[in-house]
């Protein structure tokens, strides 16, 4: 096989990997802090894509520049979800928690379907079009910008999580709710922050993805399945693990795509099942 093809595949895999990581981080952040799986994560992503789409249609904003707005909106949605739903089911059996966010997913998808119909929509006015050549490798400019933004957003989140007091308080809460509370950390506030951050990151991811993909009410499902694989591989509760796992899955998907495209997701999910069986805590899970 041609060296250029291999390099192109690896590059494409790494770029998609960062995008998958950004899509997955919010899911894992919330799980890490609260041990609640947000099944409506995919719907958050979908709503963010619609926000970017409508901003583009109405104001001509490039989807990448719409990221702060959609991040803010979905962060707010995360806060509302926590305040109105999650807080009420926190003491309920785990199954009730699962169904509450799953119900939210179904509701949001149905709402999108009702408001915007099932039509496939495409962002038409984008500032980043065309193709750039990097040492003979070809990359769509839009994809490159998206990957760069995903890296940047992830880096900012890492900084926040590891370097700020609030970030450390989040980590402490993740380790033990009780101990954190005893140390004077307002865990309720930490829960709220994890939902805001989880929403904001997937909100930004949605805006980035809007310039690459068609937008329709169930688009979130496609990505959120991959996100679950990423979270499991990286380890529940580990943000760093999520980043590595995103990259690994992006690479596997692309390399498998060269050899056996029909089975590329089979390979990804076989890995998913293998990890669950042989290393249930994932690469860097606690």
């Amino acid at each position: 096989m041609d060296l250029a093809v291999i390099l192109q595949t690896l590059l494409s895999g790494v770029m998609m990997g960062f995008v998958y990581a950004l899509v997955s981080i919010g899911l894992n952040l919330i799980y890490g802090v609260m041990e609640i799986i947000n099944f409506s994560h995919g719907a958050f992503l979908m709503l963010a894509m619609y926000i970017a789409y409508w901003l583009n249609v109405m104001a001509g904003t490039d989807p990448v520049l719409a990221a702060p707005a959609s991040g803010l909106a979905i962060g707010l949605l995360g806060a509302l979800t926590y305040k109105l739903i999650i807080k009420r089911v926190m003491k309920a059996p785990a199954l009730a928690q699962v169904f509450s966010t799953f119900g939210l997913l179904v509701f949001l998808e149905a709402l999108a379907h009702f408001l915007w119909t099932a039509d496939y929509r495409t962002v038409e006015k984008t500032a980043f079009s065309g193709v750039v050549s990097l040492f003979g490798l070809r990359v769509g400019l839009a994809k490159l910008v998206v990957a760069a933004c995903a890296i940047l957003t992830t880096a900012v989140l890492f900084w926040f999580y590891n370097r700020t007091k609030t970030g450390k308080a989040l980590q402490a809460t993740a380790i033990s709710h009780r101990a954190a509370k005893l140390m004077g950390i307002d865990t309720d506030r930490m829960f709220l922050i994890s939902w805001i951050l989880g929403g904001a990151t997937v909100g930004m991811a949605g805006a980035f993805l809007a310039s690459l993909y068609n937008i329709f009410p169930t688009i979130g499902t496609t990505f959120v399945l991959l996100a679950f694989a990423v979270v499991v591989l990286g380890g529940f509760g580990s943000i760093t693990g999520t980043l590595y796992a995103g990259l690994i899955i992006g690479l596997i998907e692309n390399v498998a795509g060269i050899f056996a495209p029909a089975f590329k997701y089979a390979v990804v999910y076989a890995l998913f099942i293998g990890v669950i069986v042989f290393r249930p805590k994932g690469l860097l899970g606690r």
Partner: protein
Amino acid sequence: MSGRYGLFVMVLLLAAALVATACAGQKAEEKKIVKVGVIYPMTGDLAAVGNDHKAIMELAQEIINGEYDLNIPLAKTRGLPNLKAELQLVFGDSQGKPEIARSEAERLINEEKVVALLGAYASSSTAPASQVAERYGIPFMTPESTRADLTERGFKWFFRNIPYDRMAVESQFKFLAAVRDKGINVGNLGLLYENSLWGQGAAQEQRGLAAKYGFTIVVEVAYPKEITDVTSEVLKLKAAKVDTVLSTNYINDAILFMKAFKEQDFTPGAIIGLEGGMVAKEFIPSLGKDAGYVLTTATWSPALIETKPIVGKINAMYKEKHGKNISAYQPHAFTAVMVMADAINRAGSTEPEAILKALKATDYPGESLIMPWKGVKYDEKGQNIYGDVPILQILDGKYEVVFPFELASKQLVWPAPPWSERK
């Protein structure tokens, strides 16, 4: 006290009288209703298709039940005159999933008591749904499922209007052979197809016909249709030095591939689609000029709105209601309602055997169809023998007929100019 009581009784009586008259009025106007079941993906990732189909099928129902001055059987009269009944379509949602298509077929037959079924878009849904109809002895007509072997199952109750994949694929190869005869270099073929029932079926036909017509397939790339990144698939095609791509895609994947072709600067001499995504209404708007020069088989073309009067009229009615033109597979769905209603009317009965007999005797006139076909007439397998498959090319943002050459609305462009030379 008694006064208030009296008032209460009076109000009660008045209400009862009102209800009674309303009921009587309804009874006098009540008509017999003949229900036909329709199964389409109304939710899920194919929902756009299902909802569009529903919209145009409701228009067909309106035309049948009302009086319209159109050269279409049943348009000028109200309802189904031989049964003195109105047609009612009952919709079921397959969600694009085979198992749900099956259970919806059961529900429509058992609970809604439909006399016939139409549907179900994806061949993988049509197969199980029509199996249910076969078991119950209810006619099933598919307007648009193209997998070839649907009509090879020896079913008694199954009918198909659209030319099936083998006919469309055959059309691709007749076209390739004709192009080769003109002295154009067709070169090596590469197959690109979504890896479910439809794509696999098409690829199988293509392999057989390539051998028959003397073309070489150098690479096959099958991929899952829920794909999110297609770079490696495109690299595989590019590395194999493919000159002509035969591409079998749904809409989402079709768009991803076109974007990746451009990104990886892969310009085969021709990309030839098999309907599906390449003729979906989002294809050109999503890609703009990057959709240019794509070739595809299509049993229907928007060019017909201008060239065939009946298509123009139906399109105008649809546009008035929904604010957009009819597109892609909608005309098939409309046609199926018309052909089925016509058969039920000719049967003069809702007995399944009578409807079956009428369907077998169908000889629907071409001039009443909003399709480019000579008509609708079924062979013993239930396949419409009058379906034709022209080849279209996207030129200046429009679908133009380029083959058969004698029907061409524009001159074929082959090879397609490389991405760098397109403006």
